[in-house]
């Protein structure tokens, strides 16, 4: 499937070659507040055409707010957002963007109508839609076409909403937690399809809670916390950037104050005889522990996965004194 619009669009001064040149997305110091709570706090982000980017972050970090800005559903209180070189609402109105939003408890589909009718409608809303059969095949919803939308399971509804998101043959696709209601098999085939979709040169941005999905599917993982980008890079480099480790051991007379001062320690937890230390430099902490003559047994050092990197990234930094979310 080629992207016809890339050649038929008026020249905007950007090179419109698949996956090269031009930005799919540009956030410049975007701030957005809900009341006094800053959901986005000077967020800056650029996504090149053809990239697949995962937005990762704890609940309330600003992932969905970011996606709402991209789609023009929200306007920034300060800063600016550009999508495919134009204002977000214009990119949406031109049908160049497809989106799959979170729907809370709802299905996100119109009640009282067949899946096929809904998809046919979605296609007609775009100037240059993808062929009906192709969209059905991509979303894997062939067996659902004759179903009423209100009779779909959560995962099935999600697949149908994905079909709606890609029905317009978009250059840029946003997926807000696309696999939240899918089972393992559904999830696997979904990402399989996304990879194929990406190989056609489309830009894909998705928000997720699933670290392994972000790591396996995305070219780049952008970690958002408290409305800012706290890390940005390939999954592998994020893992490498974090040296945080967790030390666990048993101690006959644990005194909490004694561990705080050990080299590298950022967090101390004592439960009965069990002690857990978080450290940004495990080697130094172990050496200090030995020197301190504390009688410890069963020492165990863990950490280093993407999950730990994620936790470390979203819990440290000057914006987060106190550590609580």
């Amino acid at each position, binding site marked *: 499937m080629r992207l016809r619009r890339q050649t038929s669009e008026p020249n905007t001064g950007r090179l419109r070659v698949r996956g090269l040149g031009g930005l799919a997305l540009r956030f410049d110091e975007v701030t957005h507040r809900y009341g006094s709570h800053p959901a986005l706090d000077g967020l800056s982000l650029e996504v090149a055409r053809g990239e697949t980017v995962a937005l990762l972050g704890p609940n309330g970090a600003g992932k969905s*707010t970011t996606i*709402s800005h991209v*789609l023009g*559903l*929200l*306007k920034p209180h300060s800063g600016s957002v550009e999508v495919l070189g134009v204002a977000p609402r214009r990119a*949406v*109105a*031109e*049908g160049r*963007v*497809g*989106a799959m*939003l979170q*729907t*809370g408890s*709802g*299905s*996100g*589909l*119109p*009640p*009282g*109508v067949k899946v096929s*009718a809904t998809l046919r*409608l*979605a296609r*007609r*809303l*775009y*100037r240059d839609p993808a062929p009906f059969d192709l969209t059905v095949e991509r979303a894997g919803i062939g067996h659902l076409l004759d179903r009423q939308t209100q009779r779909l399971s959560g995962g099935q509804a999600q697949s149908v*909403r994905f079909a*709606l998101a890609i029905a*317009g043959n978009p250059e840029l696709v946003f997926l807000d937690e696309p696999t939240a209601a899918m089972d393992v098999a559904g999830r696997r085939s979904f990402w399989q399809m996304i990879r194929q979709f990406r190989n056609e040169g489309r830009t894909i941005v998705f928000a997720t809670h699933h670290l392994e999905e972000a790591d396996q599917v995305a070219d780049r993982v952008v970690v958002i916390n408290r409305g800012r980008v706290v890390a940005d890079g390939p999954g592998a480099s994020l893992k490498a950037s974090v040296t945080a480790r967790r030390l666990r051991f048993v101690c006959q007379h644990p005194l909490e104050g004694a561990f705080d001062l050990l080299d590298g320690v950022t967090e101390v937890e004592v439960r009965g005889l069990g002690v857990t230390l978080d450290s940004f430099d495990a080697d130094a902490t172990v050496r200090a522990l030995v020197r301190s003559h504390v009688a410890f047994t069963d020492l165990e050092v863990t950490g280093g996965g993407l999950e730990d990197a994620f936790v470390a990234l979203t819990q440290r930094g000057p914006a987060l004194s106190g550590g609580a979310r």
Partner: protein
Amino acid sequence: MGQLLAFGRFEVGRLVRSWKFLVITVGFPVTFYMLFLGNRRAGEVIGGTVPWRVYLMVSMCSFGALVAALTAGGGRLSTERASGWSRQLRVTPLPAWSYVTTKVSATMLVILPVIVLVDVVGATFGGVELSAGTWLSLTVVMWLTALPFAVLGVFIGFMVTAETAFPVVTALMFVLGYFGGLFNPVAGMPAALRAAAHVLPSFHHASIGLALVDGHGLTATNWLVLVGYAALLALAIMVKHRTEEARGIS
């Protein structure tokens, strides 16, 4: 334009397929007509002009239009918004005004058969006799002047959640119906209620129909109030829609 047509066809298709909803909506005012007809002598002259059977028929046309507008516009729209579908539409190229216009038009489409059916029941069961021309103009005028009801329905759909839709719609139906004089002529009500009726669109809608039937012609006030309601509510929908856009709720 193609988008608007496609969405219009889709909406009408959904309405037609939800025949249970339509039967209840259409059946409601007809049932009320038959129930209320016995409240007075059918020939009793109301307000010095029309007999009760005619008064009630015109009133039930108004009431039916109101019920259809509030349930089709309000109730269904709030469910649809709760499902996240209207938000999904907002991220397609369908312009927001097309969405609102289509909702109002689809609501108008539901109102027409309600009015026709009340007329038919009035003519057969109620023994109302009018000239062919009056029947036609009554039906068309009652239908077209029901526009503020349709806008009201869509406005309510934008304002309420799926949980609060039922009580709000029911309350409005009976407040506008009762105090607008659709169940009982306002002439028999205390002065304060009579005054209150004059600010309700339901009263003015029925008044237009009654003036048509008794040959009094049309009163500018009735029309002005209805146009005012339609304009104000349309404005309110736009304001609501814009603030939602700014806040990102849909």
